[in-house]
């Protein structure tokens, strides 16, 4: 399962250690950091994503001073879901929702400029979520 592997990978980056066993994996999702970890698990190259996220936190007025919870809520609102619904959401569905949201961002010019990159707001916030987690 790709999302789970991504979750494991990101957890290592964040110093959380490997999570063993599916029960622990899904129970973790009930906590804020677990939800954040799941969301950022769809980002490749976490170290690079972290650098981008730090840039977003510095430059974007919405992301500046935002809490981890608020950032999660912002992202979940974008894909019409909630913290309660997230643990029940199949990873493929979550990935699809993020994919659609990012595409819609580019369609609607919901973008953020960070260090010369033009990114969708959703993906920029995903990167900043990683920075907040770290």
């Amino acid at each position, binding site marked *: 399962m790709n999302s789970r592997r991504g979750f494991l990978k990101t957890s290592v980056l964040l110093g959380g250690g490997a999570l063993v066993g599916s029960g622990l994996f899904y129970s973790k999702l009930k906590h804020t950091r677990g939800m954040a970890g799941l969301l950022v698990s769809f980002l490749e190259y976490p*170290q*690079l994503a972290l650098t981008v996220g730090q840039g977003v936190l510095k430059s974007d007025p919405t992301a500046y001073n935002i809490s981890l919870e608020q950032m999660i809520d912002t992202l979940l609102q974008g894909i019409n879901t909630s913290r309660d619904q997230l643990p029940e959401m199949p990873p493929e569905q979550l990935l699809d929702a993020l994919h659609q949201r990012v595409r819609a961002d580019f*369609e609607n010019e919901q973008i953020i400029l960070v260090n*010369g990159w033009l990114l969708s707001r959703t993906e920029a916030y995903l990167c900043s979520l990683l920075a907040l987690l770290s």
Partner: protein
Amino acid sequence: MLIDARQLEQGDVIDADICIIGAGAAGITIAREFTGGSTQVALLESGGLAFDEKTQSLYQGENIGLPSFDVDVNRLRYFGGTTNHWAGHCRPLDAIDFEQRNWISHSGWPISRHDLDPYYLRAQPIVGLGPYEYENLDFWRNKIKLPELELDKNRLNTVVYNQSPPTRFGQVYRHELEQADNIKVYLNANVLEIQTADNAAEVTGLKLACIDGPTFSAKAKLFILATGGMENARLLLLSDRNHTKGLGNDNDLVGRYFMDHILLRPGADVSLSDPNVDLSLYSALHRVHDSQMFAILASPEALLRKERLNNFRIHLLRRKPAYPAPVGRIMSRIDKVHGTLDVNEREAGQKQPGLDEHELRKVGRDAISLHMVLEPTPNPDSRITLSNQTDFFGQRKLDVNWQIDHKDLSICYRAMELAALEFGRLGLGRAYGAIFADAAHWPGNLEAGRHHCGTTRMTGDPKTGVVDLNCKINTVSNLYVAGSSVFPTIGYANPTLSIVALALRLADHIRERLHGRQA
């Protein structure tokens, strides 16, 4: 017939029906239109059959404008002119380019694309191109079977560009001109002055000289100035014996509105989230029978009107990207890129997952550069004037003051933004550009397109232009101008095809005029 003017006698007089000054794309095209007929044509070329340093030095001038403009290296002064080193990119101007657009000051041709269409059709083979199928992408795609980007057509379209071999006019058409009894090509013949009657309303002759040879003159019924976007203006300004401002310059317009395409190479680089995406329709040259084509991105007319944009094109090229890290690859999974699993599998086994320098360098090459070509806003303060320095003949050299409108920077930004939005929307990658980091200043890689236009602009009103819709100097009865100096706006297309089309149109007009006189 080719004649080395150095073999003429001092004081000789060339006598012809038409005198064409300059044997580049325009001059050679016009001369060829008269081959085999009874009209006597003298085609006067400053250089010889090959590059010569001394002759080329007659082009020297000083750049007193933007630092990104090079006066000397863009043009070539020998038989065939600048076609001796042109790249060969071809496309007609768009219909909107001819319009008076209320969001672009000083825009508007007195003719339409419709007026030029038959001449574009005739120009196509002259420039060495195949089928005239610029508006029919499927014509090409059916043959080369390459995928087209599924662009939002309200933002960007895939547009056909043609590629000339490129045709070196001097080489390709030399034999034909040599064989024509009624065409005399004078090499090493430098026009120093266009001489007029006292009222400067009619050209009476040309004063010529060779670098290592005699001084002589030329007489004709009609004269055509075809020496390029800068030199056309220079010769008019130098011909100030009976008009202190220069010939055709009653309204101080000769040399003004000097334009060149605004280039950002690149305007942005796209870090591809999918390294396997096939962009070769755009990034490579494709041969179809005797033709070569590639595709570019350009915005539809409706968007240009809605957002009040100058016309622009974007080339997609495989180049080493300028960005520091391949951010597009972060989004591979979100973009649902096929093959992402391989990357995940590799990383899953790493103790320190994430950035691996070797991997980063490797995927960093998965990039496409967006090269931007923008139509400039005509600017009367962008101009060519005569300097106080002189050339070999004691003729005043050029000062070139290329200026661009600051408004054009925001259009460059928007063009790059549109491309970045589309690459993101299609899940292909993310764009990085200096212009996204600093939208208030021109990026350091701003450069001119080496397409010199506008210095003898064509308008429908003598108060606002130098030539009329037939390319005749408004105030002179028998002097015409050929070449891109007559373009009042230049769209995004490379100018050579339009130069040749306009030359054909001018040749038709001259033929009619002479025929009328004979009749």
